[in-house]
């Protein structure tokens, strides 16, 4: 891969099993700064587990993950500090229901980065404006639509100034008419140079925004390529079959 640019994630021989069930088997890859890696694959293939391993929400059962040069799978490593630099967006948003939108966004910067309230709120408002939700600053999550919640979840992560953003099926829980607004925010983010790793079923989005598409099946990366090649000339028979079903 692009060896000249900075490597954010260096994944070496990553394994994960739940009891007898092997979900990830010896996965090795690198994710460099500025890349938008889109992970596709059938359900149950391990793609979400792979993504969640990157910030150690799933603890690997084997192998190493270097983030910005440090082995975050080392028990001595302070994972909380590294997670501040790894934003994550979930399928089901997971906004904090007992806090307003603004409080959702300023909690972590104030408590973890020791920002002042004004500083944190100024940054939050700026991000809210970027996604067109500044008038929702004092609303509670329950008063928002799914698409709005997901846009807030994205900017909540951005408030921590992460070096990379992980997206775990960010549009899968949304009504169809709300998918676009979330994908737009993500496209903007990609255009702004954010490094992103995205698990999604939105093939159109993958083709348009991704810089590299990764096909994970049965715990292995079966194929990875540029979007153009990936969709035009798939090699792996499983990928061919998968694409014929989803395209």
């Amino acid at each position, binding site marked *: 891969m692009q060896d000249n640019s900075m490597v954010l994630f260096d994944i070496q021989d990553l394994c994960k099993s739940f009891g007898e069930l092997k979900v990830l088997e010896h996965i090795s890859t690198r994710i460099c700064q500025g890349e938008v890696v889109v992970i596709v694959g059938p359900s149950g293939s391990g793609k979400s587990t792979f993504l969640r391993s990157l910030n150690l929400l799933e603890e690997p059962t084997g192998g190493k993950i270097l983030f910005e040069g440090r082995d975050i799978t080392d028990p001595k490593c302070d994972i909380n500090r590294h997670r*501040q630099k*790894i934003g994550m967006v*979930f399928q089901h948003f997971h906004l904090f229901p*007992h806090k307003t939108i603004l409080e959702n966004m300023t909690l972590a910067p104030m*408590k973890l980065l020791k920002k002042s309230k004004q500083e944190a709120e100024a940054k939050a408002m700026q991000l809210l404006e970027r996604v067109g939700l500044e008038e929702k600053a004092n609303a509670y*999550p*329950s008063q928002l639509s799914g698409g709005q919640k997901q846009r807030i979840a994205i900017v909540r992560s951005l408030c921590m100034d992460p070096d990379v953003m992980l997206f775990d099926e960010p549009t899968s829980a949304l009504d169809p008419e709300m998918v676009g607004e979330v994908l737009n925010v993500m496209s903007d983010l990609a255009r702004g140079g954010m490094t992103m790793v995205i698990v999604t079923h939105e093939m159109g989005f993958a083709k348009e925004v991704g810089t590299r598409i990764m096909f994970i099946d049965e715990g292995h990366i079966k194929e990875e390529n540029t979007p153009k090649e990936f969709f035009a000339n798939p090699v792996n028979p499983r990928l061919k079959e998968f694409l014929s079903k989803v395209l």
Partner: protein
Amino acid sequence: MQGFKEDFYLNFIKDDRWRYIADGLGTTFSVTFFAAVFGIFLGFLIALVRSTVDKGGSKSVFLKVLDGICKVYLTVIRGTPAMIQLLIMYYIVFSSPNVSKQVVAILTFGLNSAAYVAEIFRSGIMSIDQGQFEAGRSLGFSYAQTMLYIITPQAFKNVLPALANEFITLLKETSICGYIALTDITHGANTIRSQTYEPYLPLLGAALIYLIIVCVLTAGVSRLERRLRTDAR
């Protein structure tokens, strides 16, 4: 009507007998209040230990041992009558005559209540979606910070009604204080009865006082519930 007036005079006015009830009321309130505070504090700590181990959030052997101790504690406290616990505390644990009966009662009911409060808190913590936890951790919060800022405020809101009901139960349970000769409402009323040989007014009066207190508390709880429901969430 004339009979009632005479009875009332005999049971409550003559020889200042109302004082038994008034003093008893003070004891009932202070035992309930301090036992509740103690119960919340200890119950919350137990719930934290229990839910941390339940979630598999810690591999620490120390916590697992602590969890084992908590489980034994919950089993013993919830598996024996409060009355026996009170008698054991008074006659066995604090057999010295220098210990105030009120302190014994507060400790007993506090320890008793803590077991129930712990399970209420634990169910509250476990009822919060795992995703809330992951969202907190993914932002960089530690386990403890996630608990403090994200999980417990929501859990507390969810269990407030159950918690309030536990304290209403606690209030009524303190009526066994008389068994260690501590004058609460019940014991006060019973003392009057033994002096006047008149069971009706003292006992019905005591019952009425409990009923009024419980009604006031219940009204408070349902107001609280309504407010929590309308609160934007």
